[in-house]
């Protein structure tokens, strides 16, 4: 993935800092609790939620099992409808393709619909390096872009900002990018939205190139689907002459009919609405209506490596609804930035280390950024068993093993820093098979409990750095049991 987050500290460090930020925690708590309650209500309105969820899971699994076939079918359908299909193996190639396509139009600015894929590859930075300015047009993305900030949520990237902070950003930064904020701008959401409308409208009306992602691509018809609320998506998808869509290869659904499942589950899971205000579909180009040139860039960037993992591949079912973020106790306190990726929260904790590999400190720490409470699995509209994948990835980090990187099988060495964990597990295995030694050890621990440190020394510090050490009881359980016979004779 992109360099946007390079140099990020590992999750525990970043999280500790975020947890100390009271404004951030307040903003996050308010937002996640609001949307959590709304979502539960929206879901309870449909009596067949369980069946829709199961169908969504099955459709996505089926697609992944035949991804090669559906990719070829999609390419054929898009081409037949007047679109041009490009294939990008990694971020660098995708950025290169898009940059060249923009340059061919002779334009030096583009308008963008919010898109996770283009954030993932760091497209804005790549365009900037070639002298092309990319304007984010989603309100939250605009706040992030103007604030020289990073997104912290999949659906509401500026969730960590409150209205006062947004007002300050608009007042200070809008004039740098175009139309300045109105005089005397207050912090009411309606006024802030109006300021964004005026600022962005001048960009929409002159834009010649639009860049988007897509929520779905239909293999059978070559149709792309974008789901949004504000209308900035419709602006970018229909006003420019050239439209470039960068889409992950896992976003395919086989048939037009399959949309009936996801257009019911996605809005309710993400914004907690029966239906989002705007959904646009387009199939290639249409004479006299919308862009006359349409490019589709199919992006791999670690997705085929993820597909090669029998347990982890289910992460590719994700439809980016962000429901798992809003219920996660860890996300709620740590915030999105701590995850060091454009995909924060529970889904980010399993997606990023698979897309990028577990080579960096942050990626190796992400599978631990969870309490394994399972709330994320419960709300997931495509039933991704996030806890299962987290545990699987933890095992990989600690034990190493065979994985696929850039299409090649490689053997990962056990991660550094987990030597103590491995040693502890080996010691535990031995102790539990030698009851005498276990008893002696436990008694010794009880007698010396006054002298136990609060954190572990040496390599064990990595473990105790994010946890409080449990106090050792005054008497081992087995001794207590023997003495009292399990409390049955009226424990003395």
């Amino acid at each position, binding site marked *: 993935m992109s360099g946007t987050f390079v140099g990020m500290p590992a999750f525990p460090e970043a999280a500790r800092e975020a947890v100390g930020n009271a404004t951030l925690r307040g903003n996050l708590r308010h937002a996640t609790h609001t949307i959590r309650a709304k979502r539960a209500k929206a879901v309870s309105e449909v009596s067949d939620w369980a069946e829709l969820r199961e169908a969504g899971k099955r459709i996505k699994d089926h697609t992944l099992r035949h991804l090669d076939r559906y990719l070829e079918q999609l390419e054929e359908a898009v081409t037949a409808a007047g679109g041009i299909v490009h*294939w990008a193996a990694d971020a660098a190639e995708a950025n290169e393709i898009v940059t060249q396509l923009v340059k061919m139009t002779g334009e030096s600015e583009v308008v963008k619909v919010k898109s996770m894929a283009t954030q993932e590859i760091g497209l804005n930075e790549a365009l900037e390096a070639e002298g092309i300015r990319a304007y984010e047009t989603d309100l939250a993305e605009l706040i992030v872009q103007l604030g020289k900030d990073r997104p912290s949520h999949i659906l509401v990237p500026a969730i960590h900002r409150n209205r006062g902070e947004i007002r300050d950003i608009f007042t200070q930064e809008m004039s740098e990018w175009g139309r300045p904020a109105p005089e005397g701008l207050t912090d009411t959401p309606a006024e802030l939205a109006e300021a964004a409308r005026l600022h962005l409208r001048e960009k929409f009306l002159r834009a010649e190139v639009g860049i988007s992602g897509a929520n779905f691509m239909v293999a059978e018809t070559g149709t792309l689907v974008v789901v949004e609320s504000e209308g900035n998506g419709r602006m970018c998808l229909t006003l420019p002459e050239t439209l470039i869509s960068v889409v992950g290869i896992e976003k395919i659904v086989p048939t037009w009919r399959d949309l009936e499942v996801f257009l019911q589950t996605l809005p309710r899971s993400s914004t907690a609405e029966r239906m989002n205000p705007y959904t646009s579909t387009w199939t290639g180009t249409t004479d006299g*209506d919308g862009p006359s040139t349409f490019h589709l860039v199919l992006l791999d960037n670690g997705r085929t490596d993820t597909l090669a993992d029998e347990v982890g591949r289910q992460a590719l079912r994700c439809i980016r609804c962000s429901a798992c973020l809003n219920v996660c106790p860890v996300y709620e306190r740590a915030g999105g930035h701590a995850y060091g990726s454009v995909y924060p929260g529970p889904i980010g904790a399993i997606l990023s280390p698979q897309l990028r590999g577990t080579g960096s400190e942050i990626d190796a720490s992400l599978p631990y950024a969870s309490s394994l409470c399972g709330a994320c699995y419960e709300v997931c509209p495509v039933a991704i068993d996030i806890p299962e994948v987290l545990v699987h990835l933890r095992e990989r980090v600690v034990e190493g093993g065979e994985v696929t990187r850039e299409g090649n099988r490689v053997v990962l060495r056990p991660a550094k820093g987990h030597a103590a964990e491995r040693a502890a597990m080996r010691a535990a295995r031995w102790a539990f098979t030698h009851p005498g030694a276990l008893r002696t050890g436990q008694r010794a621990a009880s007698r010396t409990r006054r002298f136990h440190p609060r954190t572990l020394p040496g390599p064990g510090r990595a473990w105790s750095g994010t946890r409080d050490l449990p106090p050792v009881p005054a008497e081992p359980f087995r001794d207590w049991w023997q003495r009292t016979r399990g409390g049955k004779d009226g424990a003395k």
Partner: protein
Amino acid sequence: MNSRERILGRVRRALADVPADETPIARDYLREHGRRTVAETVELLAENLADYRAIVHRTDSAGLPGLIAGLLEKRGAASVLVPPGLDEGWLAATGVTRVADRAESTPAELDRVDSVVTACAVAIAETGTIVLDGSPDQGRRRITLVPDHHVCVVRVPDQVVSSVPQALERLDPVRPLTWISGPSATSDIELDRVEGVHGPRTLEVILVGEA
């Protein structure tokens, strides 16, 4: 080897462990939620449209031109965009300047028009959604996007379906589709819903029944 071959090759190698057998996808979810009469379905559409802050009006075909004229007047609209295939009679009672939907008109020209009147392809009761498919009575996608006031006429009950699955069956994927559920909205600031960011801030839906 080009990237296309490389990616497809990686996909095939990644799936080497996947067995060939497959259970079919069960579609045991509902085709529509609840049992309703036709009149109740139309009622539900009106309710759900209003719930997402669209303004709903009901009339019959005789009352339609007068209603449209009244809405444009109340809005203070000086000009109205007209799709090429819009029923002539619909605008018969208004004197507001008509602007034709022409391929050459620039977005800036559209931005100067006050209102737009269109028909629709289908409306979905359970979600309060109207769908436009670019037919001549609906015009190109941009005309219902740039002006700040959209008046959309739905023929009830024949253009109304209950659910998303029923709507998809009726729609042609070759056409560019725009699904509209209430006016433009954002919840990006502290999750407070604000109507109207970029699309029309006022959406008025007219349900036209047989007299």
